[in-house]
């Protein structure tokens, strides 16, 4: 069981590294997906190995997948809108708002 947690910890810190280092909005979003996915693995492992007769981790993961899909859709809509206005999604160019 500990090895599952080690794998998801490595995945989570890879996501955090990408979140710090990436320079474009889509790269940051991909890193966020890695972080969310590692947390989902943790919930499933705790549910299977420690409390196999309950279903809390299972349903929490189900709702987390739904929420992260919604978040991705909205964030990609924002990315496309930013690209349409500024012709770039690099973070260093995003230094002004509308007003």
């Amino acid at each position: 069981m500990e090895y599952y947690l080690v794998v998801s910890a490595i995945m989570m810190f890879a996501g955090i590294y990408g979140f710090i280092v990436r320079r474009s909005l889509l790269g940051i979003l991909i890193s966020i997906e890695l972080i969310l996915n590692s947390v989902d693995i943790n919930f499933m492992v705790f549910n299977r190995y420690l409390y196999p007769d309950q279903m809390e981790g299972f349903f929490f993961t189900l709702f987390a997948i739904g929420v992260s899909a919604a978040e991705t859709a909205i964030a990609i809509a924002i990315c496309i809108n930013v690209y349409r206005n500024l012709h770039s999604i690099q973070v260093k160019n995003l230094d002004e708002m509308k007003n």
Partner: protein
Amino acid sequence: MEMTLNEVVFYLLSAVIVVCSILTVTTTRILRSATYLLFVLFATAGLYFQMNYSFMGAVQLTVYAGGVIVLYVFSILLTSSPGGDNERPKMKYVIAGLSAVVAGALLSIYIILSHSFPTSKYVAGEIDMKMIGQVLMGTEKYQYLLPFEAVSVLLLACIVGGILIARKR
């Protein structure tokens, strides 16, 4: 050293997850990064199948690998200018991020390996599909109708917001 088939599958999937998640954040092309993310999500679904949660594995495959990755690939192709997205990150940020992340990862892996979890009560076997449906739609204790409805309202708001943000003016 004797290894069961289950352990062999687990080591294979976790090797794919570790290698591809590191490649996801270190490759310079954003489209390759999305492809490695797809491999990570496939291997995660494989871990769910290996833990006998085949419903969750199917959800992971359809929602993430089917929906989210297609969204990513389309938006990458819509927004990336040719040859412009492969600039290297600044060395200062790479050093700072790498040191913070390696320190954090070593600390958390040390804590995971040294912590004594309660004894594992692993029982193989699927969750019954009928039980999943009843727990998802029930209103009693430990049943999940209210979060289900909240997620459905959230998805509706997400559809409306996505159209509103991304439309042409």
